[in-house]
């Protein structure tokens, strides 16, 4: 047994410090000057496209067959073109020639079809919801055969879960062990769950991008990310909270970029609920919300207060002419009185001895959700509605939907998971209900309008259908919109050409360049 002397202790400590220093010095030594450093809130759980949260699409390592531009219009991705036949029951996507995966193997129809089949088997992928019968490699592309007409298939194929991976990416069990894609960047190093490093792929078929390397680092705390942004430890930082944005605004050499997302923060209402089934109660709840105040206090931007369900970023769907949702507590109380609720003990409304008490379920993954819940709680208390807020796991909402126990759910609904919002809207208002859509509410007019839209009517007619949908939602409030959603990023002045993709499909790194180099 060694002596416990001062020298011994010191030697031991130095050894520990050196050992731990040695284990990471290799990466740290690399120069940062040619690396674009991106930080974001979410972690990378998996290499599998469906569970990867789109990281590899955003980093432009893998490509989907179809891509979309900033306005959500479809454009070629890996596929150069596509055409439908049999009345949109069959689709053929043409693949470019002489394109190679990052491992040097050629991009063949077989390889791409295999990737797509894997995606179709993954229940979480939107492709699994499409009535796909067969995916077959054909001469220079891939052909989909569907059970019924499906005009939105190209839009579905913009989703990150449908990206094409090289055959070598899969192991014998079909698990993805390596991300080998076709994009302009190839993976250099992945350290799940927090960091990914990619470098320019020399064999990229398009123009060589200006940024040579990209390193993504997940940092769960918004405060940490804000500090990274202002202290030049990251070039692009996603998902800052209002306080962090203020900090960035005040700092030199870094600016805030933002874009409205096709996402709405909304209250999902259980329309089968004895209290909430009454449209007057729903309207009262909606009238109680001071949306502008909440948007200002929680999101620091009063304009984000939702005046209707679908945000202006969904240009064809948003109805500027619609009467906006109001804040009017008195009217709300009148509506409640009309519905038979009278003020009871402690200010809580009651009817036949039952107090007007509701539970709101939400989750902390998006920090504004519990914050808004707190504000909603206070707003509803004003009109005598007692609201319990349960901050739990995001899955509690679909689970509560399934067993009907959910009363109110607060979450952020993305209306363009695939490039065409129609897919999401249709899902949201499905007559049988939807996990992240309506619960216990159906409307014949709404159903017809959506069905009509799927048949790709003329533009004018389509607009009328969309208007009807918007009006119905505004009147019936099966979902109570609260606020729209703006995504933001702090960007250093080191880079030029930064644009936020509202659909979050890609970070458009190929468009970036170092400031002062061109």
């Amino acid at each position, binding site marked *: 047994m*060694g002596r416990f002397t001062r020298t011994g202790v010191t030697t031991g400590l130095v050894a520990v410090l050196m050992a731990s220093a040695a284990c*990471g010095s290799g*990466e740290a030594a690399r120069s940062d000057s040619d690396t674009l450093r991106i930080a974001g809130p979410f972690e990378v759980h*998996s290499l599998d496209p469906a569970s990867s949260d789109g990281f590899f699409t955003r980093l432009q390592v893998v490509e989907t067959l179809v891509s979309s531009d900033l306005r959500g219009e479809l454009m070629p991705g890996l596929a150069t073109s596509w055409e439908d036949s049999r009345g949109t029951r069959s689709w053929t996507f043409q693949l470019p020639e002489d394109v190679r995966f990052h491992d040097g193997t050629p991009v063949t129809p077989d390889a791409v079809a295999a990737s797509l089949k894997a995606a179709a088997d993954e229940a979480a992928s939107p492709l699994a919801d499409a009535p796909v019968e067969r995916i077959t490699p054909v001469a220079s592309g891939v052909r989909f055969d569907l059970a019924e007409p499906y005009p939105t298939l190209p839009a579905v194929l913009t989703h990150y*879960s449908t990206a094409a991976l090289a055959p070598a990416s899969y192991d014998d069990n079909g698990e993805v062990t390596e991300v080998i894609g076709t994009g302009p960047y190839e993976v250099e190093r992945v350290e799940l769950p927090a960091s990914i490093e990619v470098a320019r792929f020399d064999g990229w078929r398009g123009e060589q991008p200006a940024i040579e390397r990209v390193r993504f680092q997940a940092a769960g705390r918004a405060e940490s990310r804000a500090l990274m942004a202002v202290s030049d*430890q990251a070039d692009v930082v996603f998902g800052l909270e209002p306080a962090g944005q203020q900090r960035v605004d005040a700092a030199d050499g870094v600016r805030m970029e933002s874009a409205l997302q096709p996402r709405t923060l909304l209250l999902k209402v259980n329309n089968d609920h004895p209290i909430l089934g009454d449209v007057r109660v729903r309207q009262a709840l909606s009238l109680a919300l001071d949306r502008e105040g909440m948007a200002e206090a929680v999101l620091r931007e009063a304009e984000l207060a939702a005046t209707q369900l679908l945000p202006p970023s969904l240009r064809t769907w948003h109805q500027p002419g619609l009467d906006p949702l109001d804040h009017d507590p008195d009217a709300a109380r009148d509506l409640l009185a009309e519905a038979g609720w009278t003020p009871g003990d402690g200010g809580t409304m009651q009817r036949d001895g039952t107090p007007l008490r509701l539970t709101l379920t939400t989750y902390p993954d*998006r920090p504004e959700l519990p914050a808004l819940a707190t504000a909603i709680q206070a707003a509803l208390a004003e009109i005598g509605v007692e609201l319990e807020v349960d901050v739990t796991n995001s899955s509690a909402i*679909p*689970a509560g939907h399934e067993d009907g126990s959910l009363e109110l759910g607060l979450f952020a609904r993305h209306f363009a998971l695939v490039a065409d919002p129609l897919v999401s809207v249709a899902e949201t208002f499905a007559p049988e209900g939807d*996990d992240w859509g309506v619960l216990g509410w159906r409307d014949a007019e709404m159903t017809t309008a959506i069905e009509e839209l799927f048949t790709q009517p003329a533009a004018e007619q389509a607009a009328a259908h969309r208007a009807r949908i918007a009006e119905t939602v505004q009147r019936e409030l099966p979902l109570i919109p609260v606020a729209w959603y703006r995504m933001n990023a702090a960007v250093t002045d080191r880079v030029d050409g930064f644009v936020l993709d509202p659909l979050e499909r890609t970070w458009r790194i190929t468009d970036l360049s170092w400031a002062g180099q061109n």
Partner: protein
Amino acid sequence: MSGTQRQLVAAVLLRRAGQAVGVALVVSVLCFAVVRQLPGDAAYRIAAGRYGDDLVDADSAAAVRAELGLDRSAWQQLGDWLVDLLRLDFGRSLVTSRPVVAEVGYYLLGTLQLTAVALGLAIVIGGLAGVLAARCPGGWLDHMTTAWVALVRALPPFLLGLLLILVLSVHLGLLPAVGHGSSSSLVLPALTLAVGLSGLIARVTRDTVVEITRSEHVRFARTKGLTERLVLARHALRNAGVVLVPYLGVQAAILIEGVVVVESLFAWQGLGHALVHAVFWRDVPVLQATALVLALLVVAINTVVDLAVLGLDPRPRKREVLA
């Protein structure tokens, strides 16, 4: 090492090994049992973990349930896990589908690095402050450490970490605030933990050293003509070690378990982080393996402490009074 000492070491190892097996069993079963009792459908939780809040729905949950066999009976699932455990097969994470061994091993490495460096720093800072404070009890340094302890105890570690980031990373630009894997990104989280811990270590070191320097044998050592430094090195520190090593053991165990906040603030990947996610997502294999690793680590630390004390202090643990 004499024969009796070898026997003592063997006894410690045997007792701790027994404890390890017992703890492993209890922890596994307990985790499993409690997770079964948790509200919420595990399949939904897992699906939410895998696919994110945009994609979790009844379909994906059903697919998860079918894939993972979550509809098997509880006994069957527990039995399967224990059998696999005996074969040292920890299975795959329900969320990431990666082998649990790889996943937990990765987090374990992070935790060990962080804990070792933090503890090392804390011992250096706290030990030095403690020894210096002990030189003149009631002096300014002594009062400083007392105030330090109170402040650090009242300050949540994330605020402390934030202060350090602001000073060392943002204003001075010395160290990266966030990250994992490089030695420089280890410094700030380790320092945060070390600063929090060093106050206590300083306090305990001071008390111990003061007590020991007042002891008969240290006074005798002085009158033998030994210099102060020699007295400190040969007598005071060694005897202080007998008191401090078990204390440090307890602190190391707390560090290993309780650094989740610091991990989260500095985006450092460690077991605390893994544990939180595993509970949140109902990732039972990862949860069980993490809990198991943590429990065994604590047992390992206790073993090391036992052995160290055995090496430092030859006196028998149970002193019988002979007269």
